[in-house]
């Protein structure tokens, strides 16, 4: 049941990511919700389930994008494996851990994309902006989801 809810959440987040207008005043940057979700499931669920959800999230993003199919799934899969492996070291309740994990997951996906689209100073700067925004979103998502779980209980 939890996995089905998580998959539905991932599909909604992917659709929201696609539908939201870009922040043109910030260089046409798009807010990314999926890396934040992946960090959340990686720091909350078992490794196998977190990895499966990360792959679903990556494929959902690639299906709603012009990206080569599977490239984001690979990036998010690696992020899920790394984060679940470091769970003993990372304190999931610390905001800077959440911010850093979200930012690094977003940066990892961007670096994977650079294999295809190429790299430039502009792209690197955009990667930093997107990373910071995703990190901030991750902190907000942790607060919202942890609060929801506290109120409604663990489904």
């Amino acid at each position: 049941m939890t996995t089905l809810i998580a998959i539905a959440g991932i599909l909604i987040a992917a659709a929201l990511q696609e539908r939201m207008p870009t922040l043109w005043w910030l260089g046409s940057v798009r807010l990314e919700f999926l890396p934040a979700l992946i960090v959340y499931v990686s720091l909350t669920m078992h490794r196998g389930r977190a990895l499966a959800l990360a792959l679903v999230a990556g494929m959902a993003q690639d299906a709603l994008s012009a990206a080569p199919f599977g490239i984001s799934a690979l990036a998010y899969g690696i992020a899920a494996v790394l984060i679940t492996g470091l769970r003993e070291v990372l304190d999931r309740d610390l905001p800077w851990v959440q911010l850093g994990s979200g930012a690094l997951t977003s940066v990892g996906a961007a670096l994977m994309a650079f294999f295809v689209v190429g790299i430039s100073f502009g792209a690197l700067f955009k990667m930093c902006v997107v990373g910071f925004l995703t990190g901030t979103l991750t902190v907000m998502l942790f607060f919202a989801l942890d609060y929801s779980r506290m109120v409604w209980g663990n489904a």
Partner: protein
Amino acid sequence: MVSWVIFLGQPTAFSGKLRMVFVQLGTPFVKLGDYFPFVQSRRSLAKRNQELTHENDILRQQIQTLGETGRENLRLQQLLGLKEHTSFHTVAARVIGRDASNWWKSIQIDRGSEDGVRTNMAVLNTDGLIGKTLAVTRGEARVLLLTDPNCKVSALLQDTREPGVASGVEAAFSFSPRCLMTYVNRDAKVKAGEGVITSGLGVFPKGIFIGVVSRAQLNKQTGMYQDIEIKPAVDFRRVEEVLVVVE
């Protein structure tokens, strides 16, 4: 890692079907966005109204001028015995989504294979070229935008008639999207403001307006040809309806 990218990234039957499954799963959620339209302020609507009124005046003047030019063109064609210019057969589509990633530039439209849309079909609107169809399902299609580095268009400069290849500039930090036309003859006298159209080679029919030249410079690496910066005619942020050239 590399084998994964090669395996899933290539247009194989398996990766294609898997992609279609995820598109079909995600599209209902994308369409849900129609029920939450973004509310615009009265001030921005008034400004937009003023812009459109001004644009309407200019277009009326252009229609009168072009009408006369068209009649003259017809007379000359008849005189020369040229084949009558046929217009494109198009299918109108609505934009239902953008690209979910920051690193690629595409849009999703609400027409698919059921409406005659196939991959590699030109997509345009009244302003000019938008891109080409990339992945098509029964009811939806994804359009690769002209501003994406992977979208290559065989282009022609309107005044000098010099050919070249137009494509999007890398997914960099930008306030306005740009395109670059490469492999243009180094001796060509290119001026800012000159129009750029499709040449008719490849998937795009001839004569679709791409944009105007904003800057021309010799290629820094080889010095063998010119690189021309193009300001696209289409405002990609505001594209809501498009036409797919199906024939």
